[in-house]
């Protein structure tokens, strides 16, 4: 699939797990960022289609990154991830233009459902 996905998460286990699921969907390019700042740099340099964004990261957190993406009115579809996906956090993410919020721990079904929705919306 001709898509560029960026995974922003400080946890290596989480990044590898996501890469594994996205690999199954035959995503062309999967980029990784270990913190919010690195994520921002990559977003500025490259054309990202889908962003998997952890909330609690060093340097800049998920809200900071989502805020930047939102302000740039970019076409990036963001999927936020957190083990603390409280109503309040979901509300903040939604305000910042984040379309999908997933609670950790994630399941393969979560990822497949979200990816299906994103890909179907892209087609139409």
């Amino acid at each position: 699939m001709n898509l560029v996905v960026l995974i922003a998460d400080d946890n290596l286990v989480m990044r590898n797990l996501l890469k594994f699921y996205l690999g199954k969907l035959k995503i062309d390019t999967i980029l990784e960022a270990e913190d919010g700042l690195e994520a921002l740099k990559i977003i500025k340099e490259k054309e990202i289609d889908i962003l998997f964004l952890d909330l609690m990261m060093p340097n800049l957190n998920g809200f900071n990154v989502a805020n930047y993406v939102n302000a740039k009115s970019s076409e990036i579809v963001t999927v936020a991830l957190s083990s603390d996906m409280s109503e309040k956090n979901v509300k903040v993410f939604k305000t910042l233009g984040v379309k999908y919020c997933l609670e950790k721990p994630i399941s393969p079904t979560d990822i497949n459902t979200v990816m299906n929705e994103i890909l179907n919306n892209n087609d139409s």
Partner: protein
Amino acid sequence: TGNIQEKDKEIYLSIGIDDYISKPIDLDQLYLVIAKFTYFTIESIFDEPEVSTVKNLEYSITDVVNELELTEEFLKELLAIFFNSVKDEVVELEKAIKVKNYEEIYSIAHSIKGSSGNLRLKAVFEKAKEIEQHSKNKNISINYTLLLDELNGFIQNYAKDLT
């Protein structure tokens, strides 16, 4: 005692010993005996988190492979990464506890919770969550060192079985 026989029991009891437990110590038996002679009710002793989480130490590679739709090889790779990186996190957590840096305690516990949860290491996940929640509320009445020891115990236990 390590070797108790029916006739020994009677001797012990007849010379004024109140009760006995056999070695190796069975935790349930120990609690039962304590409960018998103290004001603790059995229920309250069995409510201790140690007891409730011990059961969760079981880990089935096959079940997790199926649930997460991974290959066994890849799951083992992820577990190795986890056990390798969590060592440093435990050291950092110990330091943070020493200087009572609650934000740091929260941040590290949160991270351990996230990765252990995704690998379905339930006992580690639950204990990290407990530490995370106490430190989030800056709860100073908690013995964090004890919680860290328990967390570390679970990690060692899983690591022994899975690596």
